[in-house]
């Protein structure tokens, strides 16, 4: 089936089987490799994107439900890495292997949009759907707090 939707502000049309998950449309049809495959069952969060502003596991979302939707992927944050969260991730040297970090950033972006100054408990709730196999959680938590500070100081 042919589906038209927006990715990072640009209109895209794809013609794929209607049960194709958004993840594979992004990766293999639109060549946006930042969104990662980790488990395929919505357990790890590596494939997290925003759909109409909501953090969503793209491996669990069929393309047939995507008509006219607006998708934000990690490539749409800032290509230069200048959002507060990206800057905090760089400042605190968060990644080890780095594979999960796009999904972590997308979940964290959704968290800060809703809760600009999150508590540790807020972070536990918002981020526990994203697995980091290298367990960089200490720094992910610190980087979210740091990004919240950066945002607060510029406002």
């Amino acid at each position: 089936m042919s589906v038209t939707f927006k990715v990072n502000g640009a209109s895209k049309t794809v013609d794929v089987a209607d049960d194709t998950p958004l993840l594979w449309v992004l990766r293999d049809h639109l060549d946006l490799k930042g969104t990662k495959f980790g488990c395929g069952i919505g357990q790890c969060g590596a494939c997290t994107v925003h759909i109409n502003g909501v953090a969503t596991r793209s491996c669990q979302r069929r393309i047939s439900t995507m008509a006219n939707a607006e998708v934000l992927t990690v490539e749409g944050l800032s290509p230069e890495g200048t959002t507060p969260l990206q800057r905090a991730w760089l400042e605190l040297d968060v990644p080890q292997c780095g594979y999960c970090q796009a999904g972590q950033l997308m979940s964290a972006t959704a968290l800060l949009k809703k809760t600009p100054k999150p508590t540790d408990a807020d972070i536990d709730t918002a981020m526990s759907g994203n697995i980091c196999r290298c367990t960089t959680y200490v720094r992910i938590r610190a980087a979210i707090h740091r990004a919240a500070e950066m945002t607060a100081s510029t406002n």
Partner: protein
Amino acid sequence: MTPIIETPAAHVSRRNFFKVSSIIGGGIMFSAYIDTAEAATAWAMPGEPWVGEFTPNAFIKIFPDGMVNIVAKNPEIGQGVKNMLPMIIADELDVEWSKVRVEQGLFDMRVYQNQGAGGSTATPSNWMPMRRVGAAARAMLVTAAAATWKVPESECSTSAGVVMHTSGKKISYGDLCSAAASVTAPDLMTVKLKDPKDFKIIGTSQKGVDNKLVVTGKPLYGIDMVLPGMLYGCFVKCPVFGGKVVSANIDEIKKQPGVKHAFVVDGITPQQLNSLLPGVAILADSWWQAQTARKKLNVVWDEGPTASQSSIGFQAKSEELSKAAPQRSLKKDGDYDGAMKSATKTVEAAYFYPFLSHAPLEPQNTTAWFKDGKMEIWSPTQQPQSGSRSAAAVLGIPETDLTIHISRAGGGFGRRLNNDYLIEAAYIAKQVPEPVKILWTREDDIQHDFYRPAGWHYFSGGVDAKGALVAWRDHFVSFGEGNGWAASANLNPTEFPSGFVPNFTMDASVMSLGVPTGAMRAPGSNGISFAMQGFIDELSVAAGKDPVQFRLDILANAQPAPAPAAPPPSAAPGAAPGGGGRGGGGGGGGPRFDAARMRGVLQLVAEKSNWGKTKLPKGTGMGVGFHFSHSGYFAEVVQATVAKDGTLKVDKVWVAGDIGSQIINPIHAENQAQGCVLDGIAQAIGQEITIDKGRVVNTNFQTFPLLRMRQSCPVDVHWLRSENAPTGLGEPAMPPAIPALINAIYAATGKRIRTLPLSKHDLSWT
């Protein structure tokens, strides 16, 4: 300052050489052949050494604008080696890190000889060779400047990419490119190295060179590879290890949408679990189409003999073996039976740790293209050497017709030391004209791993009236055949407390195993530390001593004449490379356990955690553990809280580590140590691979849970600098986290955990 004790890496062979050449369009290139192979005895790579000609590698390129390219030769799997190796070169070269661009080296044994990622060996085996490369290039730039100025070299110095003369004259490395191109290279073995007090990059925090690509989502990993006209595929193997294809509905699969090829692969005979296995390949225009077609696949399997094996059966066999006379003795000091009779208190306990999967977050994948008789491969492999050798053999082509690009890997943890996924992709690609990307599902990954082997330790021990540990016996039950161990299923006769107990017996019995096993982060040590340090904790209670003090007392009790170690057992056929437990007292040619270094980290962690001085409520406790592996000394304290209903919360972990004189990249070292510790906590909390009817029951992360943010905790890392050459950090911080947690739970609740994972235990208390 006291001279640094050099590792074997310092003994570089005569084949080492260094040369300089001009780059077209300006700039110079420094090439070297550095023999790091002999240094890698701490992590013996499998197979025969390369005997052909060696090619000097362009480790360093200096451009007229002053920018410097430095090659990182080893696979980056999250351990930070892509920063670490170039940092060593850059410091001796005396350039600013901000002027350095890091290039990933292509796999080429003729150039680099060793490009593996495993065993925490990159630091000890490359520390001196990489310093020499940087220092030799710097020396040549000084020679060029001195010749240009017609002054003695001794009047010249360098700083930040500039040669300076005592008169005040200065010239940048970039401006010396043409003059340096004709300088004779110095002898690498005698080139002057920096005094460590003059290091400017080593010991400073340098953030990951690929970080910006990571946070902006640029293609970076093996899974991100795309080639023109590429097909996407899956390879379906028998769920039972060792099974074969009898028949499959290939004709029906070929009719599925998007499918371009489908065929049965027979595998190699005799079957080797770490090489090409039998199965069915499905190649389609997209990976989702290949997966959709796979749902229609019906295969009749010949499951073979492993179908009779199960975790329940292994447990029953282990209990049977534990009651029988041990099959062999690994070590015997003093008179264990006599000491037990005269001991004031004795303790018996059986410890068990389960099979585990590595589960790196990037599922196994490889892209391969067979074109004009040559095979080109892009793969997130930890061990391209053995991948190249095995793939060439399976494909029936010479290794010189095979190229491997080392992709950044989304985690490794030892899984990617086996190249089964690389070999199958190369084989499948050779059968078709198109380039092919084979990508596993998470289920494929969890069900076709090389598992951390389960292990059983049947302990008994005794303390005397003064509370000293006087008798110890461990009947270790594991997997193998005869005197051989399954990969990573061995126990080193020098494993602590071997050598520290006067009456010490270490025995072993093994049972057959058809399930593939292999090295997983801190192989051997990752389970052994839990058992040993757990039982030591039990003995400290029997002795009525503080757990830290009891351990310090044991460490002070080195036995004068240790018995000669048993010869290292050979791995079972099909064993994973480098699988041995290279924990313990350093058998297999590794360094000996230095009790003073362990006392140092134990005292440091006790101090930092305020051990014994913190008043904790019931339900909250601190536990301690230490372990020596991969040349690193780590002692850790965990504080954990168990609610009355049994809910566990790890509050905090304190880490003290001694990995030598330098922490090369502190910001990454801390990250690595924290990751090791939380990896251990994750394993202890909920991970177990269960075997039933010869196959893995677990499927995905809901049945093999990884750690999540809400289970994480602060991890406080402290370093004890010692006058020893720096060693690696990918592994040694991991093992003691598990016993420290178990011992904390005991302190909190009085419940002694002897089998993992914790999710199988009721921790509730009243």
